């Protein structure tokens, strides 16, 4: 049975074309993933289905209704959980549920039973009197879901429910939603995590307002069977990656732990044999992301013109180290006894859900936050004494890119060069280097706000590298970015690392951890494990993903 029909739906906001003709059918009793990077149009499409926006062109039918004209009836048969869950943080769990029950007109006689059912379903019974603002990210998400489910809707719309939530809660939510589809509900789950798509029964794959694929995820990955391989070599994996990407028969390649994952171009004869000269080849199951890249016409090359221009880093000794680093906010311990060392030319990842203490640790290492106890050294400088000295030796790229939207690209570059103390001829030379290295020439006079996410990211990286720092700090550099832009970004980072630059990166994106040499898993303020990605995955068993490894380690922590 079809729950939602989309027929050539268009939507634009001013000049931006958010949706460019989407036609699809979403079935009842199924979990349909609405998958795509940020800016693909997922949220716009979900809001159209919820009747919160009007399409410019085309038609929608949700549960047999027109979402705009029948908006009042629609509200009874559609449950909607917006990105930030739509909870009142200063109301308790019970008060939030009661409010939505009253607004959605749940019969008084049924209220008690509905409430009990939802509380049991979400396992929130012990917290009914707690303020929603005091719940953990995972519990907020469950409460948001409960509020959306209060009338037992026919269609449930979830806008990026898993972002930044710890993997255990995400898994919980996934199970709950699957139980709902068993009762005949149509569930639409929007996500930027491509690996989540593999778990959906149906997928709508979107990019830049267009629908690229609609159907079962296996149907998409199936095309790539016998084209995916794992290539292991004793040598430098990043050099190997660059070598692989330079081959014409390679569609896409990424670093995965100690190996390189390769997707060959369609119709390549001899399959894996072609790669045998480079290392040990084994077949790998295709992933959804491979299929997406393939649909978009393959990944970018593996060469970074920027890294070519950078001189090799020559200084020796550990680049970043911290010992027993602790930070308290009142009686809340945001970072608890964090110790690790990052070696020269290494990519180290801090991986964990929102609130795990990644940003707190990061800020202490950048000298932006004073530790309550413990010590941190960057480039051999103790941050307690030489914070500003240390700042000159590190490049920092913030999550939101810290670009000035009202300055042009050229002015942003010039500003950051000035901030790092560059002047005259040297300043001009460095700016030129960045413009050429990142191909920014055609964009110099446009405002960063008008650029695509990928170009913004390049510009932000250019600004962070202006003073040629031997150490680079990246805060959530590619979450939500489309996989091609992400590959381009990591090509630059890999190039820099091969020149001896040391990189520390935070992410809640399990996939991004694969690019790291070593990963520190953070959970509730503590580092619960620190190892290479391969070793961490091995702990959760053969063939485990990074996410499964994380869940395994959290559970081991809880039981041990």
């Amino acid at each position, binding site marked *: 049975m079809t729950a939602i029909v989309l027929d050539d739906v268009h939507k634009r*906001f001013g000049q931006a074309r958010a949706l460019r003709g989407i036609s699809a059918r979403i079935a009842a009793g199924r979990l349909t993933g609405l998958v795509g990077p940020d800016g693909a149009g997922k949220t716009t499409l979900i*809001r159209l289905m*919820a*009747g*919160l*926006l*009007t399409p410019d062109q085309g038609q929608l039918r949700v549960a047999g209704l027109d979402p*705009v004209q029948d*908006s*009042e009836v629609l*509200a*009874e048969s*559609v449950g*909607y*959980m*917006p*990105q*930030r*869950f*739509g*909870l*009142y*943080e*200063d*109301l308790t769990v019970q*008060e939030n549920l*009661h*409010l*939505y029950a*009253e*607004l*959605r*007109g749940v019969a008084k006689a049924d209220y008690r039973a509905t409430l009990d059912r939802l509380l049991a379903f979400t396992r929130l019974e012990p917290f009914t009197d707690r*303020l929603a603002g005091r719940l953990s990210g995972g519990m907020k998400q469950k409460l948001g879901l409960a*509020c959306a489910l209060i009338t037992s809707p026919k269609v449930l719309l979830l806008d990026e429910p898993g972002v930044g939530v710890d993997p255990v809660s995400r898994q919980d939510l996934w199970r709950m939603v699957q139980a709902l589809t068993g009762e005949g509900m149509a569930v639409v789950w929007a996500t930027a995590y491509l690996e989540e798509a593999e778990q959906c029964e149906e997928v709508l794959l979107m990019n830049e307002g267009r629908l690229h694929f609609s159907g079962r995820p296996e149907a998409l990955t199936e095309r790539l069977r016998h084209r995916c391989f794992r290539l292991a070599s004793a040598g430098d994996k990043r050099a190997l990656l660059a070598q692989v990407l330079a081959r014409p028969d390679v569609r896409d390649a990424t670093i995965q732990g100690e190996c390189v994952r390769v997707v060959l171009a369609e119709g390549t004869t001899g399959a894996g044999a072609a790669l045998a000269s480079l290392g040990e080849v084994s077949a790998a199951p295709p992933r959804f992301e491979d299929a997406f890249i393939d649909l978009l016409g393959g990944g970018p090359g593996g060469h970074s013109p920027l890294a070519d221009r950078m001189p090799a880093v020559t200084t020796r000794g550990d680049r970043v180290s911290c010992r027993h680093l602790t930070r308290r906010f009142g009686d809340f311990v945001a970072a608890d006894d964090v110790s690790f060392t990052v070696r020269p030319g290494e990519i180290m990842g801090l991986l964990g859900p929102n609130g795990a203490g990644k940003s707190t640790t990061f800020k202490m290492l950048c000298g932006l936050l004073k530790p309550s106890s413990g010590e941190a050294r960057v480039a051999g400088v103790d941050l307690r004494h030489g914070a500003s000295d240390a700042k000159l030796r590190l490049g920092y790229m913030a999550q939101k890119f810290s670009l000035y939207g009202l300055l042009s690209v050229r002015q942003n570059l010039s500003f950051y060069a000035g901030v790092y103390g560059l002047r005259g001829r040297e300043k001009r030379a460095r700016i030129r280097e960045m413009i050429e290295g990142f191909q920014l020439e055609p964009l110099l006079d446009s405002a960063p706000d008008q650029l695509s996410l990928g170009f913004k990211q390049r510009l932000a990286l250019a600004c962070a590298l202006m003073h040629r720092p031997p150490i680079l700090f990246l805060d959530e550099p590619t979450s939500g970015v489309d996989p091609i832009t992400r590959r381009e970004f990591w090509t630059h980072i890999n190039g820099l690392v091969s020149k001896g630059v040391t990189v520390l990166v935070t992410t809640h994106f399990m996939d991004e951890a694969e690019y790291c040499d070593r990963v520190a898993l953070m959970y509730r303020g503590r580092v619960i494990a620190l190892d290479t990605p391969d070793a961490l995955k091995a702990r959760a068993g053969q063939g485990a993903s990074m996410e499964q490894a994380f869940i395994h380690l959290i559970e081991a922590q809880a039981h041990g």
Partner: protein
Amino acid sequence: MASRRLLALVKKESLQILRDPSAMLIAFVLPVLLLFLFAYAVSLDIRQLHLGVVLQTDSAQARSLAAEFAGTPYFRVRPARDRREVEPLLVRGELKGYVLIPADFDRRLARGEPLVQVVTDGTQPNTASFVAGYARGVLSSWLAERGLSVPVMLVPRFWFNPEVETRRFLVPGAIAIIMTMIGTLLTALVVAREWERGTMEALLSTPARIPEILLGKLLPYFALGLVATLGSTLLAIHVFDVPLRGSWSTLLLVSACFLVPALGQGLVISALARNQFIAAQAALFSGFLPAFLLSGFLFEIDAMPAPIRWLTLIVPARYFIESLHSVFLVGDVWPLLLRDMLAMLAIGAVMFALARARTRKSLEP
């Protein structure tokens, strides 16, 4: 309009007000601070002016005049024997002026010639004229006591506020400022907050209708505004000695009428601005500042240039302040109050129509 949904929204909003420290701060702590500020710190009255009295003769008559100056509560006198002692003080601003009682004072008195010279600091014209006026007053009362000829004089009498205490004038006005803050600023902020936190999106996806959502916001803040009026009035009467010559019920009725345009303005702002920063700026510029400057609170409307005077006609605080002055200082003057209430309700109706037209049940920008 479903009463059940409205009730749920009102209950939700009330719980939020009670739990939100910033709402309590704006509704209760800020009014107390403002009232104290206007009652004590911002006084337009002149008291304890520093005045030099240069006594160039030791005659009994001259000494008695000097004593008269020292005896009034308006002046704090610095005695001197020579003009050169006080002139530097006047230049430095330590004295607001000085009175010179000349060596030939007795002779001048006998002949009916000008008696004293008053020198004032003209850089502060208001203060200067106060000094001159008060000095003349002291002199004429001294002459009158002696049964000496007094030149024809204007004796001012101030009605309604015989002590001409600006506090009596400012405190009722301050109540209007406070109500503007609660009505306009707080309402604009809380709606913008719902947009910022994404709860508005969730509300819009429920069957709740726009009038219900708007009323659900307004009713609790309407009640909060009236409670704040009651509190401020009690403070005004019992702490600041402002008389309430009209009745409590009239006061509440006038306040309720003012809350209509104030809340409506908050809603218009929140329909246009979906973040708290812009909402706060807009509320300050369109609500707070006009209530301060264009309402007759500090500056007399009759003294304004005509175009500005016309502008004040659309400032609801203007009518509210006029009504408050009447209720507090004169009494229930119905013809005036009715006119003001009608004006406030009319502005309120326009605001609500605007808010209703601008708020749509969608997220379209």
